[in-house]
């Protein structure tokens, strides 16, 4: 989890949206840069719910822009990377890649098989224990049976092993390089012995470094960007806030563990404030124990270049009853 991905991290630009597909990049950006994005994909292990979602991570244009400005990331034209990359793929690459997957798939298969074996043994053991306990109970009705370990325990542990196999997709592959020669067979024949795998990224298939021709310029951002950047620089974690009736939610720490403090709305420096909007916002915020925050950048400061983050002013509004 503490892996440092190679910088700059490529952000995939597809059909107007910004995505990150590498788990290492996702955790790294969250940990080091307070960029959380929005997980928008289905979690394959529990696909029938919307509470916990998985890769890809969709970034707001503001987040992408901020990361590029910081030099942490670059924007990549993903459609062309994929099509060009595949076109450039030669037969030898294909064979090599398929063999890697093959090896991984076989390994997972073995792990799962051994896990099943283990589970069966544990189940047997539990039955024995129960019998023993019941016997003991009959003898003298006192000590309760030892606390049963939840059945999920062993599975989670094994899941972690499986996860470990995929977590750092780069390194994994390097480690595996040497010992996979043993399983070198024509790919079609052994399909039934290996798990099929849908990788999250195309890293091991396509060149890691995006070529210059696939890099895109700075993302276009809405007029609220200065406020976004300002709050971010103050240490807030920001996420899209529409559902809560604002533009951003500002969290004092990682949203995984903290409630948000502010409902944020950006206004233009010279924009006339609608008092009714202020009332509604203040009321909404106070109703959920958050502050309603409005702010914006002083656009009077001549040109874009000289503008500093300090030009942003923010105001917190609280509904105080009548």
């Amino acid at each position, binding site marked *: 989890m503490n892996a440092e991905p190679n910088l700059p991290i490529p952000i995939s630009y597809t059909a107007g949206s910004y995505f990150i597909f590498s788990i290492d990049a996702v955790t790294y950006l969250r940990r080091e840069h307070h960029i959380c994005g929005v997980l928008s994909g289905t979690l394959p292990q529990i696909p029938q719910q*919307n509470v916990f979602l998985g890769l890809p991570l969709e970034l707001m244009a503001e987040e992408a822009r901020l990361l590029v400005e910081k030099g942490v990331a670059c924007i990549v034209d993903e459609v062309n990377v994929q099509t060009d990359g595949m076109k450039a793929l030669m037969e030898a690459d294909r064979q090599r890649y398929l063999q890697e997957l093959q090896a991984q798939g076989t390994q997972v298969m073995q792990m799962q098989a051994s896990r099943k074996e283990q589970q069966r043994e544990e189940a047997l053991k539990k039955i024995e224990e129960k019998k023993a306990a019941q016997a003991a109970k009959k003898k003298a009705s006192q000590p309760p049976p030892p606390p049963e370990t939840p059945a999920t325990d062993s599975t*989670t542990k094994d899941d972690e092993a499986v996860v470990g196999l995929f977590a750092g997709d780069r390194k994994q592959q390097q480690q595996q390089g040497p010992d996979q020669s043993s399983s070198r067979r024509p790919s079609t024949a052994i399909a039934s012995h290996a798990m099929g795998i849908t990788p999250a990224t195309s890293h091991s298939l396509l060149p890691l470094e995006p070529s210059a021709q696939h890099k895109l310029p700075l993302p276009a951002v809405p007029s609220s960007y200065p406020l976004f950047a300002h709050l971010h620089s103050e240490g807030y974690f920001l996420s899209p*806030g*529409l*559902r*809560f*009736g*604002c*533009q951003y939610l500002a969290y004092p720490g990682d949203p995984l563990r903290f409630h948000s403090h502010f*409902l944020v*709305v950006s206004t233009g420096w010279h924009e006339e404030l609608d008092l*009714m*909007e202020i*009332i*509604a*916002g203040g*009321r*909404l915020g106070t*109703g*959920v*124990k958050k*502050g309603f925050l409005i702010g914006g950048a002083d656009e009077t400061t001549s040109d874009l270049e000289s503008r500093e983050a300090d030009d942003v002013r923010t105001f917190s509004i*609280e509904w*105080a*009853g*009548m």
Partner: protein
Amino acid sequence: MANDSTSTTSPSAAVSVSSQSESKQSAPRPRAPRAPRPNFKQIYRFPLPINVHPLPPLIPHNPLSIVSVLLSYLTYFIAPPHQEVYPAYFDADTSSVHVTDKKAIRALWEMGFFGKGTLSRSEPSWLGREKKRRGLLGTVASEDMTRQRRSERRELKLERARMERVAVEERLKAEAAARDAADVSVDHNTLSPSADGLTNGTDGTAPNTEKFSLRKAREARYLESRRLAAQDGEERGADPAGKRPVGGKTVRFSPVVQAKEIAPDSAVHLLDPIGDEPGPQEPPPLQDEEHLQLSNEEAFFLAYGLGTLDVYDGKRKTLLPASSLLPLFCQHSHFPPQDPSVDPKPDDPFLVSYAVYHHFRSLGWVVRSGVKFGVDYLLYNRGPVFSHAEFAVVVIPSYDHPYWSETEARRAQCDRNQSRSWWWLHCVNRVQAQVKKSLVICYVEVPPPGPCSAEEGSTSDIGDLLSRYSIREMVMRRWVPNRTRD
């Protein structure tokens, strides 16, 4: 008022508000018996400040009934019943209409819930409150209830802030101690959560800090109110939370809290003194200082629609007819008020908003300002004393007529006027959800300027003008797919 029923539960209600997560689980508490309340059905039996005189029923096969009908006609002809017309004056400083006549104030409030008391939140109740404050009456006005509720809630918040700080400090101390101690392992188990350890996550120590402090705070308040200071120690000893190693059970809190910590609450704190009346002085004989303040829409409806209100100018000399009220109100729908020489446009805010007001009034709704909820109007069935407003209305003009898209400038102006951002809509919708109201978006189709307008605009047929607007309501609510699956 209906508030009476809530008054008894308010202290605990305040508690549940301050704790998001807890209030959700709390079971409905038994209500204290209601205080007897006035007979609303009797007091507010008339929906509008106009008297009606129903005819006796006409039964065709009963000649007597015909006679009685004729008789009633005759009576009305000879001595027509008197319809009250109430005086009011337009106050340019507040851009609103004021009623000072006591009888008129009661009548307009009781028959249709028009206006609000200038010194009250809604019903003019200042005199009663003031009498009570001076110890002349025994009852409690709703404003006082609210004030008390708020101060209790504020105290609670301070208490909780204190508790949280103490818990963090204790934790830090414990961690420091654990670091210093040679065998870290002993304490470490209780301090560090496991990766998937929900055992620690839910009923472990961490979330407890929150619950614990809240419970403590609540309890402390309870105890204090009972003035059981002496038994303080023992009672708290029984608290299950007292088992925590921090030893919170003996902590006494200083009444002084660092300003920084109560910062989130300070706004409430600072604002409150404004509400306090000056201290009791030797009373001059008590006079009702309160006016009934009518919004311009209400005043126009009473004057133009019903004809039961005479609006005078600020000097209370000249009677303003509806034909001059309309341009006046249009001027005052802008800030600062528009110059009288400027003709009101068809999308003047007053015209648009009046069309909506009139529409809902004409259907029988009691329409009142929704400013407290960030909306234009609230719609009450029968009136605010009977039930909450179930609908909250926001007005959005619409410019569908080709006239409005004829020129580029006009199009841009219309776009500005009718465009609303999504975050605003969600914000307003959430506020209504908090108070269990449904949001109604009321679109008003704005007509093009009339053919005869020009300078004559003010004198042309008002009814004709209004009937060129048209209205369409849409009820908006959040759709939660999780709840509609079957």
